[in-house]
């Protein structure tokens, strides 16, 4: 903290001390007027006056009218990282008399193409502004939002009535931790369970033991009675002793995150899992991009040492070098990951004639306006459009056959290909369609870790990662081996693509056959310098995963991954837990003392099999179980309301708004408003949001320009980049004492 910062803090304290104590029954509006929500201006104005007089005396001494432009000086610049969207662009914030007045892009960063030489003196870099999008620039308006919350608020009327009173931070923490008749003063005669009452399991060894055995029970390997006998002294710790696999009552604290990223994720996980012992930390991913990520992961997973692993969740076209890009349900100007890094690479290509783009989107987007062709596909029919393209490619032999024939790493290497596919691998055909990949052991040809291709008419065992013995297989094969019906992966895709005529696909998608053909012809006319980029458009449907896989198949058919102008995984970043040998040195979760083992099915039943639970009782289950996914945001509140698999006692909502962002958000708000379903509800937010306005307690959070963080780089960045966010102004939130240390109220404070 600099001397100046201290002064600001001190003045903020003084200012806050002058605030009148709010009276009972105050509305949000009157509270605002009283200054409990402080935009920061009063404080800043008092400092600015001092700065003005300095300037005036300097001018009187005979300087020029204005002197050097203040915002051109390095001393006015603090570099940080945006978070107005998850692209998290490096920014340059210009400070004038303690006020963040303008946000530009950081010229040293990867968003400047190419970035400014790191040897450039800061005085020169201060004069060079790099690009940043209008949303990033509007950070000034978010930071100095007149409705920023700067003090802790407690509900002073029914949930959602927007009646609040300011209470001291410590009082709020004590009430939340200890519980009690917290709302007696407004006529709510109910006992609210505090966090202490919820965190009943607090023995690390016991939690580990009970977790291990609860898993055995869930899998049917241990009887409930045996479990109960073994832990007879501790059954009160469980949500339901008849169902040990629901875990301890600690799980009845639910924490939901909207946008949260590295720097906070680690702290949040440490608190919820090892610290509190609750399984219920639910991120927002399912309402964001999850099916896109899972599809990519499954498409890129490698079979190694007996399991599938190592898949990556995201790829982007190498748009610096591409000649043709199809933006499938996304664009390079709106959303995505994100416009500041993507737009220039595309517009450069459009202006020079290097690149042609197609935008597939029901909406005429700004990206579409720059496109050679815009295909307004009917929403959610993306897989049909992709399969129509596959059909045309197969009919016209416009796929990279040589690439697809390579059945393992050695074959790819011999053919000069950086990647290979399993197009030739055989898949078992069950009575209801394609099943698992055929293993060599299934037909007594080899071990169970080998797959099978047809090579020269003969079934041949192949290990995908074998880099010594090159194997190529037949692409199109359908037959029976040792009584097992098999087809190649390529054949399965082909049959699906040929299951409908072009006219039928056209009818489903709303795209004329002529357009499908023209676009596919162009896509297959640039060798490896073509790419299909997709993001949230096709995937945010209940059939999103399948849409994604169909689209990924287009890239695989031309074998463009890791080729110049094709698909790339980006440069990546260095992990915040450090890399290599030192990796675990900074791992908060691993170094946590007295760490509890959180266990039991999550409230969303994500990562759990219904059949492997003691709740199994035939079909259908009361609510869906989601064994293959995680962070199912929209399922958390309805499950809590249904009490399935159990109810919750407390909710901590952070930087997110299920009422606005989750499907059927109005029902989320009804749940949040119900004190019987969510007995205790606290939120960390920078303003009273659509959802946080239903909370019992709202803690002021620091805005992104007031705190630290280390976001990851967009996969569109071809360079390895680690980012560091630092505060650019003193936080506007009140100063509170946590473990004897004064700090501005923020998300981080609540680990007290």
């Amino acid at each position, binding site marked *: 903290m600099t001397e100046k910062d201290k002064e600001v803090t001190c003045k903020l304290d003084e200012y806050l001390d002058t605030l009148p104590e709010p009276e009972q029954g105050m509305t949000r509006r009157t509270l605002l007027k009283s200054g409990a929500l402080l*935009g920061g201006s009063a404080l800043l104005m008092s400092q*600015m006056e001092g700065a003005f007089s300095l300037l005036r005396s300097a001018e009187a001494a005979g300087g020029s009218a204005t002197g050097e432009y203040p915002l051109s000086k390095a001393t006015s610049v603090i570099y940080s990282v945006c978070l107005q969207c998850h692209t998290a662009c490096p920014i340059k914030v210009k400070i004038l008399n303690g006020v963040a*007045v*303008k946000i530009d892009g950081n010229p040293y960063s990867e968003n400047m193409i190419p970035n400014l030489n790191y040897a450039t003196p800061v005085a020169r870099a201060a*004069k060079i502004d790099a690009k940043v999008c209008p949303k990033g620039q509007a950070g*000034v*308006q978010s930071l100095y939002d007149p409705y920023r919350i700067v003090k802790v608020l407690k509900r002073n009327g029914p949930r959602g009535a927007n009646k609040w009173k300011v209470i001291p931070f410590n009082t709020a923490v004590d009430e939340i931790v200890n519980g009690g008749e917290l709302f007696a003063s407004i006529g709510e005669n109910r006992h609210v369970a505090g966090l202490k009452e919820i965190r009943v399991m607090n023995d690390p060894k016991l939690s580990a033991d009970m977790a291990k055995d609860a898993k055995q029970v869930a899998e049917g390997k241990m009887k409930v009675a045996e479990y109960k006998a073994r832990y007879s002294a501790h059954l009160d710790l469980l949500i339901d002793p008849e169902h040990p696999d629901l875990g301890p009552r600690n799980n009845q604290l639910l924490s939901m995150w909207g946008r949260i990223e590295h720097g906070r994720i680690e702290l949040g996980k440490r608190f919820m899992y090892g610290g509190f012992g609750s399984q219920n930390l639910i991120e927002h991913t399912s309402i964001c991009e999850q099916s896109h990520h899972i599809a990519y992961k499954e498409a890129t997973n490698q079979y190694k040492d007996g399991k599938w692993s190592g898949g990556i969740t995201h790829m982007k076209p190498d748009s610096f070098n591409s000649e043709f890009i199809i933006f499938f349900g996304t664009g390079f100007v709106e959303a995505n990951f994100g416009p500041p890094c993507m737009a220039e690479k595309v517009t450069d290509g459009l*202006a020079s004639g290097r690149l042609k783009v197609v935008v597939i989107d029901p909406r005429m987007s700004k990206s579409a*306006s720059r496109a050679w062709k815009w295909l307004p596909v009917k929403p959610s029919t993306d897989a049909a459009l992709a399969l129509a393209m596959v059909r045309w490619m197969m009919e016209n032999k416009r796929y990279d056959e040589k690439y697809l024939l390579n059945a393992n790493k050695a074959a790819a290497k011999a053919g000069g290909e950086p990647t290979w596919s399993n197009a030739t691998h055989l898949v078992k055909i069950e009575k209801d369609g394609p099943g698992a990949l055929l293993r060599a052991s299934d037909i007594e040809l080899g071990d169970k870790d080998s797959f099978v291709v047809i090579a020269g008419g003969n079934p041949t065992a192949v290990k995908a990662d074998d880099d010594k013995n090159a194997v190529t297989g037949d692409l199109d094969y359908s037959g029976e081996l040792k009584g097992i019906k098999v087809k190649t992966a390529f054949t399965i895709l082909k049959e699906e693509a040929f299951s409908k005529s072009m006219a039928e696909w056209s009818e489903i998608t709303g795209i004329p056959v002529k357009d499908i053909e023209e676009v596919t012809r162009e896509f297959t006319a640039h060798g490896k310098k073509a790419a299909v980029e997709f993001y949230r458009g096709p995937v945010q449907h209940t059939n999103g995963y399948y849409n994604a896989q169909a689209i990924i198949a287009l890239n695989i058919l031309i074998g463009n991954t890791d080729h110049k102008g094709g698909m790339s995984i980006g440069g990546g970043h260095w992990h915040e837990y450090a890399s290599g040998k030192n990796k675990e040195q900074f791992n908060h979760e691993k170094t946590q003392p007295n760490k509890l083992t959180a266990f039991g099915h999550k409230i969303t039943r994500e990562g759990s099999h219904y059949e492997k639970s003691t709740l199994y009782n035939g079909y259908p289950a009361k609510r869906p179980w989601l064994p293959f996914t995680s962070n199912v945001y929209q399922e958390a509140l309805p499950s809590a309301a249904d009490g399935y698999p159990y109810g919750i006692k407390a909710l901590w909502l952070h930087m997110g708004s299920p009422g606005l962002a989750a499907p059927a958000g109005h029902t989320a708000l009804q749940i949040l408003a119900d004190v019987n379903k969510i007995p205790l509800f606290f939120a960390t937010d920078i303003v009273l949001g659509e959802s946080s306005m239903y909370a019992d307690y709202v803690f002021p959070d620091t805005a992104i320009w007031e705190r630290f963080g280390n976001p990851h780089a967009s996969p569109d960045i071809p360079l390895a980049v680690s980012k560091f966010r630092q505060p650019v102004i003193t936080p506007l939130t009140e100063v509170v004492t946590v473990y004897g240390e004064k700090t501005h109220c923020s998300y981080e404070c609540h680990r007290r």
Partner: protein
Amino acid sequence: MALNEIVRMHEDLERSLKKPVAKRSWIMVIDIRKCVGDHACAVSCMAENVCPPGTSYRKVFETEYKSFPELDRFFMPANCQHCDNPPCMKAANSMGKGAIQKRPDGIVVFDYAKLAKSKKAAEAAKKACPYYSIVEDKGGFYTDGTPVLEPYEIRDFYEYDKKLNRKKGDARGSIRKCTFCLHRLESGMLPACVGTCIGRAMYFGDKNDPVSLVSELLKKEKTWNFKAGLGTNPRVHYIGYEDRTKISVATPASCAACHQ
């Protein structure tokens, strides 16, 4: 891909600043093919110049044209063209002498005090501008009617080598427009809109410098001026769209939707 045009333009700028003002000739070049309509330039300009509600020096006009499925969209970034024969200057100065002036480097300068005083001169200038680039500062703030007048609105800002503050009344009641960010140029910075453009559509520099990027673009590319027939001799030059059949550059029909 042309490598780091921003750095190159900075070098161009530094070279020109070593010359006397009269030897500089600032121009702006906008490649509309690369404009993605994200309005970053407009937002940057408003923050840089503390523009209140209803005023914006840089506008990106947007229009949709044709009908589904041939529908298309078009973006047209526009600001004060710093005409060498500025109609606004003639109109205003006939009523208030010296209210609008032309600098030797080409920049058209407004005298806020004079223009705030002579409403007639201001009104005449606004009407005379064929590019709809002149806006009136009506005195309001975006955070009017909220609990606090936020500090970014009442900060000092710098235009035409003057330090201004709207809280103190500066510029309020006057007409305003793009200054080519003169205060930034004089400090060795490109105009705010140029650096922030995510499509890299914006160029700025000295036409008198034969090796500047803008001079090179004027030579290399087919550029055109907006409403060239009026004889205003604008200093903003446009590139693009001659290769697209849907918009004819000579008569940008879609622009007429915004520029009545």
